[in-house]
């Protein structure tokens, strides 16, 4: 096969250069080591001061299936998924043709030459590269060769996009840290790519990376690692888990960080315990046992695990035991698409367990908020003595996000209404479930408290204010009413929505969690392209507080954007506002439930379509 088609006929005008504002998709096979190459490429761009984001679309197996990694460079700091791919690196024979077919006209394709893709379409810019052959020259070991072919593409793309070679080398050093041999080999591969491109490819596309200063001081991190850090700095002591994608990396990061930062200097002993449980029922049972005994304890899981925790969570709710549960949501129902993202567990988690139950849910939407809620979740769980769920998702949890560095938490942690022996001594009529303060929150003591009146009996069956067993109707009603009071108190204590008002806006947008980033961008699109202003309320927790009603009240039409089929939070909003039926008419759903992270363009299109359907429009 020749390389004659290196240069497409359409010579781009240099003036029309697209700088720092495009997406690169790398299509490979998983288990082929492309992850490192992708990280290196992404980090190199980041190091050039250009805002980046990375989305990994990987299959639910370990090796041999198609996987796509998208790097978005955005001078505007947009980090949501971009539906449109500007440059495709086609390394995977299984999907190459379909991948090429799905591109917009004018897009660029760098591909393994032997795939012969240049005849698939004639409206694209093609750069064939004999990656396999080139890799052979660098290394003889066949397994390593595959890895290196992937690194070579970074060199090629580096050249095409004018990414500084030093930044790539620097990124390689970061990636392979202490492993000098690996650094050397990979740098060599990069060089091969650079050299090959320089000599054989003629720049025909408009894409360029130029140095900016938008990433100084920023970090790159996935939400799971951020959540782990949040928990560590909030003093988590007992961690239990059962592996499940996309949640495992939260605890795995935590283990790494704790090993480094939570070993007592003097004794070499751990100020924490991490247990890989036999399943999720055991994981939540351990969390409840530990929290009952006073530890800050957490577990992390995904949908199937949440379902399995259902009975135990009801116990936590009813017996009033703190627990922090991270749900890194993936596509359900059932096993669903285990490596795709969704916000589909909201309703069932909010109502998790039989009987009259409802729970506090937090919706982090950034790595920074994962860090922050890593602590907030404990403060709330201990203050309200109840399970608290942090509803992250695969997109937020496993993808790499650019973020401001996390601020060291200066405030002390809130351990809630716990009486130690001394405090108990001062309280003459303590009862475990007495509502002393009128906020529905009782005082508790911890097992091991050395005081004659400290002990009480915890149970999931009927109990009175003194924690005694009872089946009396009046006791039960009192208990349930107090739990409601406590839940109402929580409204004022959970993170309030973040509201961004556009003066003169007629419409409002409500979203939460990882959907946030598509909204940021979509609002700009609406403003810049359609002169449409939209105020925005980002929900950060359930239960809602009064801001919701006030917000909806202010706008003619309110779009609730979420990543599930059933419009789950919309349903809760409707219930919340049902006492103001006139508000309900304003509400419209924008949904994305195909497993891909939601993108701004789709939101904008759906919103505009809806707007134009209005009689007045």
């Amino acid at each position, binding site marked *: 096969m020749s390389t004659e088609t290196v240069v497409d006929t359409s010579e781009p005008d240099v003036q029309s250069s697209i700088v720092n504002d495009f997406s690169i998709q790398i299509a490979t096979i998983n288990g082929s080591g492309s992850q490192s190459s992708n990280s290196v490429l992404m980090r190199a761009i980041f190091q050039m001061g250009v805002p980046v984001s990375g989305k990994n679309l990987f299959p639910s197996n370990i090796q041999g299936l198609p996987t796509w990694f998208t790097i978005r460079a955005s001078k505007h700091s947009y980090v949501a998924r971009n539906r449109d791919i500007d440059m495709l690196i086609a390394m995977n024979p299984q999907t190459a043709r379909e991948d090429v077919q799905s591109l917009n006209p004018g897009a660029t394709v760098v591909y393994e030459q032997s795939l012969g893709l240049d005849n698939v379409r004639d409206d694209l810019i093609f750069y064939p590269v004999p990656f396999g052959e080139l890799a052979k020259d660098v290394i003889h070991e066949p397994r390593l060769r595959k890895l290196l072919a992937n690194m070579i593409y970074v060199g090629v793309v580096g050249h095409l996009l004018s990414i500084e070679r030093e930044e790539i080398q620097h990124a390689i050093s970061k990636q392979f840290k202490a492993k000098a041999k690996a650094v050397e080999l990979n740098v060599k591969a990069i060089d091969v790519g650079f050299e090959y491109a320089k000599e054989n490819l003629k720049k025909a596309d408009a894409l360029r990376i130029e140095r900016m200063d938008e990433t100084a001081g920023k970090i790159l991190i996935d939400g799971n690692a951020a959540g782990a850090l949040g928990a560590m700095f909030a003093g988590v002591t007992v961690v239990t888990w059962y592996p499940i994608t996309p949640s495992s990396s939260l605890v795995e990061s935590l283990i790494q960080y704790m090993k480094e930062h939570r070993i007592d200097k003097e004794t070499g*002993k751990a100020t924490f*315990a991490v247990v890989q449980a036999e*399943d999720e029922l*055991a994981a939540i049972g351990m969390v*409840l*046992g530990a929290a009952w005994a006073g530890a*800050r304890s957490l577990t992390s899981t995904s949908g199937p695990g949440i379902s399995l925790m259902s*009975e135990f969570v009801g116990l936590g709710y009813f017996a009033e035991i703190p627990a922090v549960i991270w749900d890194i949501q993936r596509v359900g129902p059932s096993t669903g698409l285990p490596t795709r993202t969704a916000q589909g567990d909201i309703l069932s988690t909010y109502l998790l367990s039989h009987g009259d139950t409802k729970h506090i849910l937090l919706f982090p939407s950034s790595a920074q908020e994962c860090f922050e809620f890593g602590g907030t979740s404990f403060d709330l769980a201990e203050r309200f003595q109840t399970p608290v769920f942090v509803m992250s998702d695969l997109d937020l949890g496993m993808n790499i996000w650019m973020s401001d560095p996390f601020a060291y938490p200066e405030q002390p942690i809130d351990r809630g209404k716990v009486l130690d022996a001394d405090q108990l001594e001062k309280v003459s009529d303590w009862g475990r479930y007495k509502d002393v303060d009128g906020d529905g929150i009782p005082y508790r003591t911890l097992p091991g408290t050395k005081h004659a009146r400290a002990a*009480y009996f915890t149970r999931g069956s009927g109990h009175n204010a003194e924690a005694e067993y009872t089946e009396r109707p009046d006791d039960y009603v009192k208990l349930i009413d107090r739990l409601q009071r406590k839940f109402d108190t929580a409204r004022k204590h959970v993170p309030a929505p973040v509201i961004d008002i556009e003066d003169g806006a007629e419409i409002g947008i409500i979203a939460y969690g990882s959907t946030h980033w598509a909204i940021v961008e979509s609002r700009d699109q609406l403003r810049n392209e359609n002169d449409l202003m939209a105020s925005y309320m980002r929900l950060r927790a359930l239960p809602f507080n009064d801001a919701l009603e006030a917000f909806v009240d202010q706008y003619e039409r309110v779009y609730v954007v979420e990543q599930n089929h059933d419009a789950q939070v919309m349903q809760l909003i409707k219930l919340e506002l049902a006492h103001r039926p006139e508000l309900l008419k304003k509400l419209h759903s924008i949904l994305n439930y195909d497993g891909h992270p939601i993108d701004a363009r789709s939101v904008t299109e759906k919103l505009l379509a809806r707007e134009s359907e209005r009689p007045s429009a």
Partner: protein
Amino acid sequence: MATTAPPTAPSKKVNRLGLTQASYKGKPSTLCKGCGHDSISSQLVKAFYEYGVEPYRVAKLSGIGCSSKTPAYWLSQSHGFNAVHGRMPSVATGSVLANRDLIAVGVSGDGDTASIGIGQFVHLLRRNLPIVYIVENNGVYGLTKGQFSATADLGSKLKTGVVNDLPAIDLCGLAVELGATYVARSFAGDPKQVVTLLKGAFGHNGTAFLDIISPCVTFNNHAGSTKSYTWGKENEELIQEVDFVPFFEDIDIEYEEGETANVELHDGSHIILKKIKRDYDPTDRRTALELLLDSGEKQQFLTGLIYVDTKKPTLIELLNMVDEPLATLPLDRIRPPQSALLEIMEALR
């Protein structure tokens, strides 16, 4: 000879902590009159008293069932946690992790442990969690009115005439096989042995598992049952005579060589085992498993200390945890310094 069971304490008598036996009592039982479980509760009270356990250090844990209700009926001065059905092991694990100073005493039923709870039981054993784990084994689900549980013997009969046609799970067998380090079987109708084995369990560091046959007088105490008082009384055969000398007493009498074995427990207490018929070494895992196999096949009802291993590390040791309870470590020990965060942030740049 040292005696660990002082003559039944007259009301004013106190133990080494100055506590009366009454201080170890709980709420009045709501079980059926004569239930084996109540008898075990009484032995617990006695054992705690005689051993001199500090009530505030005990965490009482249970699942759901008549048996699982019993922690309310002893040690009112201890925190208790009546969890959900079959899941006491995980709750116990969590509490011990949170506070390693707690003396965890778990009570479960045969339904609670051998049916719904067998998974958590197996994994608790594997971890050698420090806990005294008691199954009050009556072969039926008492609280739901007498259905067979998975420890019902093959061929035993319900009152309704229904015959159990599935083999019994031998919980002691599982316990030894899977990693428990103190395994005993006893009989609610043999209070003296129960008390002694309990005290031994208190002195042990690791999973102390006690399978106590505890007749359900309402649903499984009839002819045809192999978990009735009558059956137990007629069939109980001691593996050895067990005696206990707590760490705070001297072993002041010589035991005859060859006729007794003396196992020193974690806290310096001793379990003294006096040979009856067989030569039995409970420190040998293989011997223990063979005894269980043997008696299982012959449907013998052997009671006593089946297995003890005082060396195996517990979960707490494996986790290399600090000596203090994690639950109450001060903030400066659980929140790394600002420098740590800065360092981490730097690495992510």
